[in-house]
């Protein structure tokens, strides 16, 4: 196997090399090389919303004590906190489980759009015909994140990793794996 990077992960766990993970339909001899998630900067919207909601709850606490009774205020606070926690928790889980997985055999795109809808796309490294990266925008250029498009031969599944960190490094790893696969095929 070509020289792939050693086990590592970044602070936000959005770019994990050789992580200790397993996914559904993983083969016995299949090794996970890379797991990517969306860059944390792209998740700022729900984080900011959570902070705003918490601030609103504090404001409500400053306004309503004169109108409502103490037990009602406590209840409103408990309900407000639970609502905000649920909002943050759902968004965190959707970010955490929406991953791109690159193994020594396949490229897998696992998307959770909401709580009850998921999409699982996979293609073998052998079927990959073209890889494109797209880095755009102010934050994308500064923080080095963007999209990776993996095209396959014929009408097979095309795979997209959106807003992932270090797209060029991801392409480099896929290229190394393709090279390995092709040399193994030639030898075979």
């Amino acid at each position: 196997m070509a020289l792939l990077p050693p086990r590592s992960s970044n602070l936000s766990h959005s770019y994990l090399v050789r992580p200790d993970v397993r996914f559904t339909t993983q083969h016995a001899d299949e090794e996970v090389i890379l797991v990517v998630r969306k860059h944390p900067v792209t998740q700022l919207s729900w984080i900011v919303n959570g902070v705003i909601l918490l601030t609103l709850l504090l404001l409500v606490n400053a306004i309503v004590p004169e109108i409502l009774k103490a037990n009602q205020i406590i209840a409103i606070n408990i309900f407000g906190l639970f609502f905000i926690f649920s909002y943050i928790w759902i968004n965190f889980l959707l970010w955490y489980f929406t991953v791109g997985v690159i193994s020594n055999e396949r490229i897998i795109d696992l998307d959770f759009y909401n709580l009850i809808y998921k999409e699982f796309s996979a293609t073998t490294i052998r079927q990959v015909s073209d890889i494109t990266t797209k880095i755009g925008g102010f934050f994308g250029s500064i923080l080095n994140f963007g999209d990776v498009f993996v095209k396959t031969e014929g009408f097979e599944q095309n795979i997209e990793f959106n807003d992932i960190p270090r797209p060029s490094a991801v392409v480099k790893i896929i290229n190394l794996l393709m090279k390995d696969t092709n040399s193994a095929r030639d030898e075979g």
Partner: protein
Amino acid sequence: MQNFISLLTTSSSDDFVGLFIKAFAVFFAFLYLLYAVVMSRQTQIMNDTFSTKMSSILSTISFLQIIFAGILILVALFLI
């Protein structure tokens, strides 16, 4: 049954605003329970699809929400 109805209509919820808040709280608490059950189940499915070292922690937090939902129902029925 009579006791249950009196529980909902008495305590400190004598005024209209209080009654409105209580009704809303009970409704929201039961919705939260429904959400917590779905959430817990979905977290399990997510963990089965893609499992990491954090899987057990995530499942536990999602399951805890069901207990929190129970607490919310009690709060809605008795505290308000």
